[in-house]
């Protein structure tokens, strides 16, 4: 029982983090068709923002990080991506790859290579069903999931979300109907990457800050997006749950190195078997089945 609770809690805390990352990455991929390989570096930017503005109270500092994230992502979209959309996915992928290197080097130039840390605003631990768990991790997981929930409500229940989904489905048609494509693109990129910056800011008290810290987060976020139906916005969140659960389960029973190996192997197999992504809605399963010729 106790180990089950521990497993659940570690999955929850990973899920909160990955869900923010995957939702952001999924938004950018769905709207712009850009594989944001600099996603991890935006996490790093968020974490270092928390280190840099040490004097500001923690919640306010998160806000500062978010503002910084919005500014940085709008600048990126304007200066780098806007000219490259027409050149296709490879061009934008390479550009983002380059941006990732620039951001890492910039962090190294500004903050040096010595690892840094951010003090946790919530000390101590709380008891959850007989298991002591760091309070901060729980708070962050809940805040992250709340942000994800709000984002999904906006996407599926507001007129802004409707415009966004329309623009993703068929940008030309949406433009004809008066939804400004440029604004939708820039806005989506800003929201998507700022979610990564926010994730980095929230996670900073549990991380050792180095310029290369973001590299490790690209793979789980990317897989979370890949295991679900492309273009789906809620999908990556489910994907994040799959990735978090898989990771905690494997690492619960295997050594870290072997677990890592199985983790990546399992995801590659999953994607090879269902290249169109997993579908999480039962009706969809039945509808695909019914379409198959007898």
């Amino acid at each position: 029982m106790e180990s089950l609770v521990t497993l659940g809690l570690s999955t929850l805390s990973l899920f909160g983090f990955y869900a923010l990352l995957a939702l952001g990455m999924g938004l950018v991929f769905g709207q712009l068709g850009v594989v944001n390989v600099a996603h991890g570096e935006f996490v790093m930017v968020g974490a270092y923002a928390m280190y840099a503005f040490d004097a500001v109270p923690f919640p306010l500092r998160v806000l500062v990080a978010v503002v910084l994230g919005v500014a940085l992502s709008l600048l990126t979209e304007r200066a780098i991506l806007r000219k490259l959309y027409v050149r296709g996915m490879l061009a934008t992928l390479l550009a983002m790859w380059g941006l990732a290197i620039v951001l890492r080097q910039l962090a190294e130039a500004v903050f040096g290579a010595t690892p840094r840390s951010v003090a946790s605003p919530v000390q101590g631990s709380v008891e959850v069903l007989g298991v002591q768990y760091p309070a901060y991790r729980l708070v962050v997981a809940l805040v992250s999931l709340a942000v994800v929930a709000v984002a999904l409500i906006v996407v599926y229940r507001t007129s802004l979300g409707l415009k966004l989904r329309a623009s993703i489905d068929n940008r030309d048609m949406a433009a004809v109907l008066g939804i400004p494509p440029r604004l939708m693109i820039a806005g989506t990129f800003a929201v998507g990457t700022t979610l990564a910056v926010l994730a980095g800011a929230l996670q900073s008290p549990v991380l050792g800050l180095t310029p290369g810290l973001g590299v490790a987060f690209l793979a789980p976020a990317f897989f979370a997006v890949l295991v679900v139906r492309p273009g789906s916005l809620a999908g990556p969140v489910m994907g994040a749950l799959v990735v978090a659960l898989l990771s905690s389960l494997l690492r619960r029973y295997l050594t870290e190195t072997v677990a890592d190996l199985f983790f990546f192997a399992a995801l590659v197999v999953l994607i090879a078997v269902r290249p169109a992504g997993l579908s999480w809605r039962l009706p969809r399963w039945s509808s695909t089945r019914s379409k198959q010729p007898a």
Partner: protein
Amino acid sequence: MVVHTFEAAGVIRRRRLAVAGASALLLALSACGGSVGGGDSAEGGDEQGPVKIGMLAPITGPAAPEGIALQRGFDLAIEHINDAGGVFGQPVEVVFIDDQADPATATQAAQRLVQQEDVDYIFGTITDDTTIAAANVAEQAGVPMSQAIATALDFCSPHFWPFGETPTQLLTDLVPRMVEEFGPNVALVGNDYVFPRTYHEVSRQLIEEAGGTVVAEEYAPLGTSDWQPVINRLGSAAPDWILSAVVGGDAVSFVQQADQFGLLENRGLTGVSVDQQFYPALGALLDGRNQVVRYSDQLPGDVNEQFVADYRAAYGTEDPIPGVAGNAYDGMRFIAEAFEQAGSTDADAVSAEIAELEFEGLGGEMTFDPDNHVALAPMYLTRIDGGAYAIEEELGVISDDQVKDCG
């Protein structure tokens, strides 16, 4: 038209091949020439040219914190050597290459150093795999080489003289003291590569000799950011103290998360993860803990005081000075002295001097074991106190009987 360009491209490609072939041949020739040339210059006697050192350090990439510290200590040594008149009465020349902690890059860099730059000595690098990659190139070219960071290198050659501390030197006194202070049950943790595993092979043996037991042993890949499962397993083994060979940014993540999960409550912690370079990030979590080092900026003596003052002035830092910087400073001055004594840049003559030299380093007299090439210098037990790795006790020179074929 199309055919024409096609042909032209073909010609160019053939020419490129020819050029590539010729340059490969040239490279091979110059590789042979390098060692012969080295022999020639040895005959030169009193008319020695300037000593040229090839310096390798990963100042970018995952080992950058250590790489930059290495470079800083080395640069200060060169500055001080040259201020004092250099070697053979001429300033020492340095060719620096960033190996990015990548063995392939290190191999190419070492090749450039011995073939194009014709260096007399190679200094570096940080991770053992890149050091071995460069050392293989150096060995083939007959160029002597040294590294300067704590190491579990399974490599030796007649001209390879590592200044790094061995696990045995770091752990021999530390382990029994920790067993006595905290208790017999020990948890081992580290990143998953050669150094931490060798480090823990040695520590396991020492723990058992001290009457202790290893109750858990965990390794995670470099770049692990989430340590929950490892911390859970370590915690459920209920150790009295934890010996950690987690390095780099991971060390900070691990120690911080271990603290948040309550793993460090009333438990001892020591090992590579409490080294000086992690103090700026971990601060209070390390205060009061013990560590065995060869170099600390708290060492007494004028030479060290001068080094510390110059280091702080040159790099504008008040953080504890990493041990690798002290090792690099001592190592390069040791090598310069060996060149001076040998009176030539001939590899055999320089290595013969290194094997016999007794050099006054920052922490005391430094020599090499002539058989297994382990650097011997006094070790110190320190207690970490507000960023100062304060000397509690001089432990003297700790020998390491590992058997290595250096002949």
